[in-house]
């Protein structure tokens, strides 16, 4: 296995001469994942989602900042050089925008938080009586702003955690772990997702081309004029991709007896109905008795349907990511953070939700802060990817 060659091999390697000794590839069974010292993408997503969950448990800016710092450190040390890893920056910008928008709204539209420290007074625009409850302008208090900042920071942290998941494991890698019956749908979704980045690239190219025609390349009119060519181009590319996928065997299915097909349909539909009815039962007051068993039965039937449906699919998996000890550790560290913060918010709500009225400086609660640091565990147990 030539795994040690790495990207240092000349970018344009010449095909080997026939006589040259060729490295023999080991067969698939039991091959250690020496090259792919990566963690199951599902583990990264669970870790990131858990951190996001933890972020929703608190409004303490110090804890939130600690969460962001911990996830950012892991991303900085473990993201690959791949283009999708750059999405982290985009998510960070989005988070910042969310925070700013939240603050602007609190300033302009006022806030229900009663405050005494007036920072400035905007001219208030009187609104007709049917718009009661909405205020434009007026007093802006420090309490309202601080509350908005805490709230915005919570949302921003959540977004940054999702960005971390994107940077550490591309969604299409996650796709490989989907059950066979859902794979084809998954591919369609992922291909649709790549549509947007391509569209943006096209818009940039065509706006540049406008400059070559002597027209201004900025402004909304420029955007509108390239709209149609961009859509045409995107459509053409989609058709070309569909043709390529078709000729590469996408959608090949195995012959399945009619009986199995009917059973699959019945199980899936019945299972979904069961899940709906069971959820309804659980949520309503009088359905407590039948809710839980119906939900369980429905889930079981739907899973069986999926499994049976997988028979129609011929697909095999090339080097599926194994769920190993590292994956458990990564997931575990995330879940632990979420669980500990949930526990802390129940035990000591005042430390995790610093008071706004009256204004107090937030303090760093020791035990919750220590538990947030658990999120750094992946940085220690997962070896770095080669860049």
């Amino acid at each position: 296995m030539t795994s040690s060659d790495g990207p240092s091999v000349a970018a344009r390697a010449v095909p080997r001469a026939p006589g040259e000794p060729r490295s023999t590839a080991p067969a698939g069974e039991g091959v250690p994942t020496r090259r792919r010292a990566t963690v199951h993408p599902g583990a990264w997503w669970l870790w990131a989602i858990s951190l996001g969950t933890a972020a929703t448990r608190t409004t303490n800016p110090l804890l939130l900042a600690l969460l962001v710092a911990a996830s950012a450190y892991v991303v900085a040390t473990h993201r690959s050089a791949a283009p999708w890893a750059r999405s982290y920056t985009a998510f960070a910008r989005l988070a910042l925008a969310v925070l700013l928008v939240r603050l602007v709204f609190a300033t302009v539209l006022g806030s229900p938080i009663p405050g005494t420290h007036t920072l400035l007074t905007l001219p208030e625009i009187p609104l007709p009586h049917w718009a009661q409850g909405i205020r434009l302008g007026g007093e802006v208090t420090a309490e309202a702003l601080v509350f908005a900042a805490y709230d915005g920071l919570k949302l921003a942290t959540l977004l940054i955690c999702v960005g971390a998941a994107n940077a550490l494991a591309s969604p299409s890698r996650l796709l490989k772990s989907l059950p066979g019956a859902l794979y084809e749908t998954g591919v369609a979704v992922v291909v649709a997702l790549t549509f947007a980045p391509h569209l943006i690239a096209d818009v940039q190219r065509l706006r540049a081309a406008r400059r070559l025609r002597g027209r201004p390349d900025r402004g909304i009119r420029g955007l509108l004029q390239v709209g149609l060519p961009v859509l045409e181009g995107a459509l053409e590319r989609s058709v070309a991709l569909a043709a390529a996928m078709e000729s590469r065997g996408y959608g090949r299915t195995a012959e399945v007896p009619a009986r199995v097909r009917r059973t699959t349909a019945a199980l899936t539909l019945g299972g979904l109905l069961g899940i709906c009815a069971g959820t309804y039962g659980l949520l309503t007051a009088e359905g407590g008795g039948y809710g839980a068993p119906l939900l369980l039965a429905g889930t079981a039937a739907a899973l069986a349907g999926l499994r049976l449906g997988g028979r129609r699919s011929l697909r095999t998996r090339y080097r599926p990511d194994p769920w190993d000890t590292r994956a458990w550790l990564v997931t575990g560290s995330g879940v632990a953070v979420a669980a500990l913060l949930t526990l802390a918010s129940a035990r000591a709500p005042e430390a995790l939700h610093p008071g706004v009225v009256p204004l107090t400086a937030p303090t760093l609660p020791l035990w919750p802060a220590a538990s947030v640091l658990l999120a750094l565990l992946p940085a220690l147990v997962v070896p770095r990817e080669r860049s």
Partner: protein
Amino acid sequence: MIRFEKVSVTYDGAARPSVRDVDFEVPEGELALLVGPSGVGKSTVLGAVSGLVPHFTGGTLGGRVTVAGRDTRTHKPRELADVVGTVGQDPLAHFVTDTVEDELAYGMESLGLAPDVMRRRVEETLDLLGLAGLRDRPIATLSGGQRQRVAIGSVLTPHPRVLVLDEPTSALDPAAAEEVLAVLQRLVHDLGTTVLMAEHRLERVIQYADRVVLLPAPGAPPVMGTPTEVMAVSPVYPPVVALGRLAEWSPLPLTVRDARRKAAPLRDRLADAPARPEPGAGVPGEDRRATPPAAGRGSGRLFRRRPAPGPRQPHPADAHALTVRRDRVTALHRVNLTVAPGETIALMGRNGAGKSTLLSTLVGLLEPTTGTVTVGGATPHRTPPRELIRHVGLVPQEPGDLLYADTVATECAAADQDADAPPGTCRALLSRLLPGIADDTHPRDLSEGQCLALALAVVLTARPPLLLLDEPTRGLDYAAKARLVTALRGLAAEGHAIVLATHDVELAAEIAHRVVLLAEGEVIADGPTAEIVVSSPSFAPQVTKILAPQRWLTVAEVQEALG
């Protein structure tokens, strides 16, 4: 292995069939080349092999196509996926996954091969195509040649018995093209794969072909034979065949090596012939050319420039110590370039050497990181677009990017308006460049050559003294290329300075006065065409290689010298 029986294809809404009476057979283990002018239905024939025509494209297929005994009428493309591998013109449109290794495995996953078989074949294919160092790389970061090899590899892993390729080398630089062709030849020789490919650049591929299928004209039945037989009658042929026909060599040579063996008498005749003219000679307005005829020949080391008449005008383009950095990569490094009026410069170099970046900087699409660039005295990225088009015009790699309107007529009218030119200017230019384009055609329905002509006319409407072209011959057949050469020579004679980035050595030999070679963003050679290309094995045109050590560049020159 591939058998066409009386095949005709009529697309929905078309008045007449795109191809008719196509009847040929490609035996197992042969490399067959599909040639013909643009628009004769080469892509349709290729699509019929993989079943995409008619299952995916629609239309009516008459006759019968069988591949490895399977009838494409009853087998959908996905059911042929295990015997036919198809690579289209644009490898980027072909990729489904993100990384090289996953892409190689994708086809096999669809076919449901066992994991250990997949693993073995991926490793074999990585070695076969020299991709082992790229296995983890995201596809988006690969160069053109690497992408093409990954695309070929991705259809190779299911071990198809037939490989269908549409213009596999047209976007590649000469070295990368040879790399891809070497791989194909190895597949044919070692694995017995049957290959059917269409390619416009015959000088690159003809020597690898076992047989040639020629579609001489739209709707005409194909001619089938060995390369030598077909090239004797073909309307499209590479320079080596053109020289062979001129010198009446029989049998016709197809490779430089064969031609050199026969060329000794021709070299003797040419040695006595009158002095070799410079490229671009014989063009009307020769006296206005920037090159004094003696400058490029013999002792002329430097390209002397005639002083500009009257008050000294700024150069059409002037770059000094130009450095451009994009995404933390240095695309250009301390490039100096001066372009004189009436001069034609060919920018050459590998894919990714910085040719397109240099052109983009000259039209102000990119800002120099350090150094200066001026076009006609103006700084491109600070000049408003309306003003800039009077100094410089660029025809991008995809000429269609310049076109927005629904019809050719409105496109031309818009161009007149953009350039403040009298109405009808653009249309007149277009008719001069390429007659016979109807006013009401949609720009997307134009052929590659027509689209290029329209984009060129649009750019020329503002009369820019400097004209830039990025890969103008991609997808053009020899006839369209010859028309382009005539048009560009005419423009140079009128005093337009032309800079073209190209991989096409034959084009450079035909029209360029000067060649600038770029490598990794630096200028590594800059001088008269004859001196630069003769000294480089990969950038020398075929005629130069055949007649070395004499310095001839094109068949036209040889013909003129012989009288």
